[in-house]
């Protein structure tokens, strides 16, 4: 691995003597990537970000950002970082532009520099039209984006984004993803936290799964998926055709298909991916079975999470048991 731009070693942080928010966390990653910190509510994501952004002192451990010891020299560390916290930290009585300009001035930019930087950033996050309105007229998502702009003013080497897309509508979410990807192309390193499995999956080059203050897994998204094996095919058919379907599947697959007793969803491993899917379709067709639903699913981080923690990532709705590949929010148990 290249020289790590963020290095965390044995960090412990306890709140109120009992809540172990960070339990001996150690991780490091190289510059120029998106590093995803994934975990349910209360996992310790925000706490780790606050340690790395000089806002919180851990009881023990070492933390280094861009070659600077965060705990020994927080002043210098602050010149290297940008932070967009979990909740937008913007003044609602100032306009969007004034907010960003203010941060520029506090970074030590001249009035003219702050102005041009603010204009450029507001353009970049698609807030140019609303730039001169007071923030209190902004929607929640617009405020989050403004907050993101403010975190970019200092052209940070390492950008910390705490749940950057929570509360942002799907389209703006894609915009934010694109912005983050662009930043990384420009040389910035991004550490982001998320409760969205698909977000970590799609955006992050490396992912750390954290639960109850402990790092339970670390690696690329593929590394994590390897712990699970390959893709699966899921299908459902009319109840009276189930037996026939299972028979047809047995003829083409080596593994015994499973059937979910609740949803009646049938699952078979797709050993050869799309090729297996084609075979399944053919087998069903020749038996004149028309499936209600048929899909090829790659294993998701959701499954990884289940495997690693031994407890489920609770589902927001009262949906039946987890099936692979759906977007889902993690909740603490």
């Amino acid at each position, binding site marked *: 691995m*290249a020289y790590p731009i963020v290095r965390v070693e044995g960090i412990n942080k306890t709140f109120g003597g009992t809540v172990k928010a960070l339990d001996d966390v150690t991780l490091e990653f190289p*510059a120029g990537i998106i590093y995803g910190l994934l975990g349910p509510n209360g996992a310790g994501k925000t706490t780790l970000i606050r340690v790395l952004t000089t*806002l919180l002192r851990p009881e023990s451990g070492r933390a280094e950002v861009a070659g600077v010891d965060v705990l020994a020299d927080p002043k210098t560390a602050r010149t290297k970082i940008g*932070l967009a916290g979990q909740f937008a930290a913007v*003044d609602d*009585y*100032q306009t969007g532009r004034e907010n960003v300009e203010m941060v520029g001035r*506090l970074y030590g930019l001249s009035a003219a520099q702050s102005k041009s930087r603010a204009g450029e950033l507001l353009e970049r996050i698609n807030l140019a039209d609303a730039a001169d309105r*007071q923030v209190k007229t902004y929607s929640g998502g617009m405020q989050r984006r403004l907050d993101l702009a403010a975190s970019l003013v200092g052209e940070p080497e390492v950008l910390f984004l705490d749940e950057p897309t929570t509360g942002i509508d799907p389209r703006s979410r894609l915009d934010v993803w694109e912005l983050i990807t662009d930043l990384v192309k420009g040389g910035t390193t991004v550490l982001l936290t998320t409760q969205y499995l698909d977000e970590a999956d799609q955006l992050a080059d490396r992912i750390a799964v954290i639960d109850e203050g402990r790092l339970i897994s670390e690696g690329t998204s593929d590394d994590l998926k390897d712990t699970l094996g390959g893709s699966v095919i899921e299908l459902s058919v009319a109840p009276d055709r189930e037996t026939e379907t299972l028979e047809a599947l047995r003829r083409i697959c080596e593994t015994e298909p499973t059937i979910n007793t609740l949803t009646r969803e049938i699952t078979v491993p797709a050993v050869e991916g799309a090729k297996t899917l084609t075979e399944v379709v053919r087998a069903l067709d020749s038996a004149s079975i028309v499936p209600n639903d048929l899909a090829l699913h790659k294993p998701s981080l959701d499954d990884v999470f289940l495997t690693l923690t031994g407890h489920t990532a609770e589902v927001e709705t009262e949906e039946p048991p987890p099936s692979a590949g759906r977007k889902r929010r993690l909740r603490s148990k």
Partner: protein
Amino acid sequence: MTGATVPTKPGRVAASAPQTTRAITVITKRNLLRNIRLPQLLILATVQPIMFLLLFNYVFGGAIGGTLPDAAGGEYINWLIPGLLVQVAAFGAGQTALGLTEDLSKGVIERFRSLPMARSAVLAGRTLSDLIRNGLVISLMLLVGVLIGFRYQTSFAGLVAGMALAMVFSFAFSWIMATIGLLVKNPEAVQPAVFLSVFPLVFASSVFVPTQTMPGWLRAFADNQPVTVTVDALRGLILGEGALLPGNSVVGQILLSLFYSGLILAIFVPLAVRVYRRTVS
């Protein structure tokens, strides 16, 4: 690319003295802007002391008028105004606690703390902007006082000096309030905290009535606490030495008031900064 070779971009220098001054200016302006953008805040903050002024003057004026020293010129309003100026200075300082808790709860302080700027700038900017704001409120109240009959009995210079002393006191009090705000953290909880700390000082004092009629134990406190000392200094400056308790001099009260303000600053500036550094919102 390795971390060590990332080029340092312009504008990334650690906070220096001129930068600290600039940061304080930026924060002060930001805080004042809030008063302009949300004028209802300032209007309410002004209406309340003016209501106090009118109520006390017309409700108590008749009853208390007779017991006042001659220096008041026979008018309760003359006695009341110097007291209310200090009362408003003390209560107005409570704004510092409120403003800080609001910034804390909105996460703005977290952002400031993650920026490469002097950490003292947030508190300095806050207390300075509140000083300016309180100066405005006090001036408006004085204006209304003049409209309903207040007249200084010494000189205009005495009045200006009295106002200045009230502002010094207000600034010092702001640092107590900053400490309270940072400790309490919650905007709703901080209101009663401010009230509890200011109310006894303002009422067990010479703000509204002379202290002579208070029971001995209370009077021992009332005569010597900073609010009374400052109010008496203002009365000496605005009404003349005759407004003071026998044996007290105007200069003596001024020095004592400045001593109190200095003492408060010496204790609470470092304390507030210390709490600020350690504050976890």
